[in-house]
């Protein structure tokens, strides 16, 4: 079987998974009771409430409600957000861009730094660099996100004032168009490097907070699987061929050590999305996180469902990507099953 067939087969399963996930998301949210509360205002009469219920199809049986909701999702209608007092779709997209910009930049940092640190440490097993990396990783995995975020906030924003919080300088924000709502991309599209620098500068604190934990986990995994791979016979065989240590590491050990690490990278993306809620609130990042927290507290089901559905689908796609990379790194996966 070719890699292409493998990807196609995996893609065909994806819609089935998404439908399954959407049913679960809907059912679990509705377990919390009718979402009518968030739309009510003081002084409404019983007639007005019934009218509202009819408008949102809340008087229909649950399966019918699901069909209405699923149909809405397909046409881009995600319902009305009581918290934002606006259609979910309108609020969702710009906030999503903010969250994605944060999550993707953290993920990039985590993958690059994690793999590099893990390789560095694994190749120098039980020597000083390995010990230092271990301290770094264990701290990263052990420190609660909210605590580390506040620590960075106090040191780098309050005392040193090196980095700002929020997402951008208002003046700089107004200077350029925002077609994608990813400020780094927008500024590059506008060719405004000052704005690009500002966008990056604002990213540093939240991305460092969010990325640290993932970096730590990836580095640990990379280190231990590299240590394991370096004990394999094929590494000695590569040395026996006369390859310099640099190539033994680059062409042989690291490639195989990446296989288990890729799984962890996929999983840590979920960790990043979760953590973004905390990081966004602490660093006043205008993403989905804060809105979500409010929505959960006030039972704004339309928003919750949209967010959970979105993150689930994102997770499915990331895992698909992981499987494809996996198959590319280890052809035995493609053969198997």
């Amino acid at each position: 079987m070719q890699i292409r067939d493998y990807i196609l087969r995996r893609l065909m399963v994806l819609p089935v998974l998404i439908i399954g996930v959407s049913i679960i998301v809907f059912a679990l949210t509705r377990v919390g009771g009718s979402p009518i509360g968030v739309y009510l205002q003081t002084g409404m009469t019983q007639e007005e409430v019934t009218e509202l219920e009819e408008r949102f199809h809340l008087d229909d049986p649950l399966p019918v409600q699901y069909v209405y909701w699923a149909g809405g999702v397909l046409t881009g209608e995600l319902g009305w957000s009581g918290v934002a007092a606006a259609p979910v779709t309108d609020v969702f997209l710009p906030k999503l861009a903010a969250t994605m910009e944060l999550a993707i930049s953290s993920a990039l940092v985590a993958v690059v730094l994690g793999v590099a640190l893990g390789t560095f440490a694994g190749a120098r097993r039980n020597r000083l660099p390995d010990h230092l990396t271990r301290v770094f990783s264990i701290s990263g995995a052990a420190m609660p996100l909210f605590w580390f975020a506040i620590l960075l906030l106090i040191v780098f924003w309050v005392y040193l004032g090196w980095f700002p919080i929020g997402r951008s300088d208002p003046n700089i924000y107004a200077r350029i168009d925002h077609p994608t709502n990813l400020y780094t991309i927008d500024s590059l599209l506008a060719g405004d490097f000052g704005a690009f620098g500002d966008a990056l500068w604002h990213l540093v604190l939240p991305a460092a907070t969010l990325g640290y934990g993932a970096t730590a986990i990836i580095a640990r995994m990379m280190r231990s699987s590299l240590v394991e791979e370096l004990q394999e016979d094929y590494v000695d065989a590569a040395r026996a061929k006369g390859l310099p240590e640099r190539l033994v590491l680059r062409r042989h050990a690291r490639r195989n050590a990446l296989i288990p690490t890729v799984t962890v990278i996929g999983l840590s993306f979920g960790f990043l999305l979760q953590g973004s809620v905390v990081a966004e609130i602490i660093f006043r990042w205008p993403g989905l996180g804060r809105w979500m927290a409010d929505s959960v507290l006030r039972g704004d089901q339309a928003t919750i469902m949209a967010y959970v559905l979105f993150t689930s689908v994102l997770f499915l796609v990331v895992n698909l990507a992981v499987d494809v990379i996996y198959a590319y790194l280890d052809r035995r996966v493609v053969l198997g099953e």
Partner: protein
Amino acid sequence: MSLIDGIGPEAAPRARPAVASVKDLRVHFRSKVGVVHAVDGVSFDIGDGETLGLVGETGCGKSVTARSFLDLVPMPPGIKAGGAIEFRPHHTCPSCDGAGCETCDDSGRQAEPCDSCNGGGCEGCGHTGQRTIDLLEISEKDLQTIRGNRIAMIFQDPGKALNPALPIGEQVAEVFFQHRADDLLADAGASDGTEALGGALIQRKAGLKTSRIEDFLLSLPPLRGQRTKLMAAVQTRVAEALAETQIPNPRKVMDRYPHELSGGMRQRVMIAQAIACDPDLLIADEPTTALDVTVQARILELIRDLQQRHRTSVLYISHDLSLVKEVCDRVAVMYAGRIVESAATSSIFTDPHHPYTQGLLAAIPSANHERGRLVAIPGNVPELIDPPAACRFAGRCPYEAPACTAHDPLATTITANHEVACFIHHAPAGDEERPTWDRKVR
């Protein structure tokens, strides 16, 4: 069960200098309970074109000895505790171009002359006039030019010794990139390096030195053609190397991954990779242990055949005496980090002089043995942590006497080319009672 005949027993003792001499090699391992003397004073020569069998049971230090040639013993915990491994590179005899003549003693090969005395004989080469390299002393960088080029190694389990994530062709190609970059460039017609940047890049590519960015540049149109030519040159060489080991359809096999090949095929790939650069010495570390018996025979035949055609010397590590009998000219028997007996294959098997060798040979199951009972040497291999100066076999030896536990036996020549380390054959330093064949204690 003579699968392979016509070699070994009848081979005449060689007067020509050895391609490699191990001298008092000591490799120890640091452990929590003490220092393990895994290899403790091992000496032997491998003659040019000779196949030397190194036999012994698991843990006797034969693999560590073999790996020491290429510095593949992990340090730490390993310690180079002393000794030397002298290697003398050879080349094709210039006066007969490999056909065999008087000058090269009909072997078609000649040792390279010593750098400092140019054949005259000096301190550096031990007055042999031949280029002599101490593999334990040279730098990692120098060693890399020898590994896979002048000394190659085949591993026990070909399933583990090939990288599961790389196609076969790429793995074999590495040997050529590493050691034959100039030849590849010449094949590709790029050796003159005409275009400044392109030439430099393609040369770096041929030496596996390119970074990702350089690789990207090479995949772009102006340089693409040169890269394609270089890759085609490598592929041709790889296909030739694979064909050499009788792999059918080498061009197809090159694109396969190791898990898609059978065990025997994988070992052929390993052998192809090992002999790709026509090494002077091939170290085969139990090359057939992981294979089926029928495949074993084919692989042994292949090694023997290649060895005769390329006139490569072979160090053949095995615990299987019946295999060693088939392939080796000479055999050295190892026990607990020492060589206890070494001789031509025929004399070892017909006339063993060390009690341990005798025990080993008696333990080979044969049709004459009583059914349902296997012969074994009683007792266990001793712990090698800080061993005392005594015969290592004392405690298990049927002929043990007081001298055996008080002194270290030395290797003694008893007949031409037959050495034994046992007090039955030489007097101990002290006046303790010596063992004799007449007195059996066990």
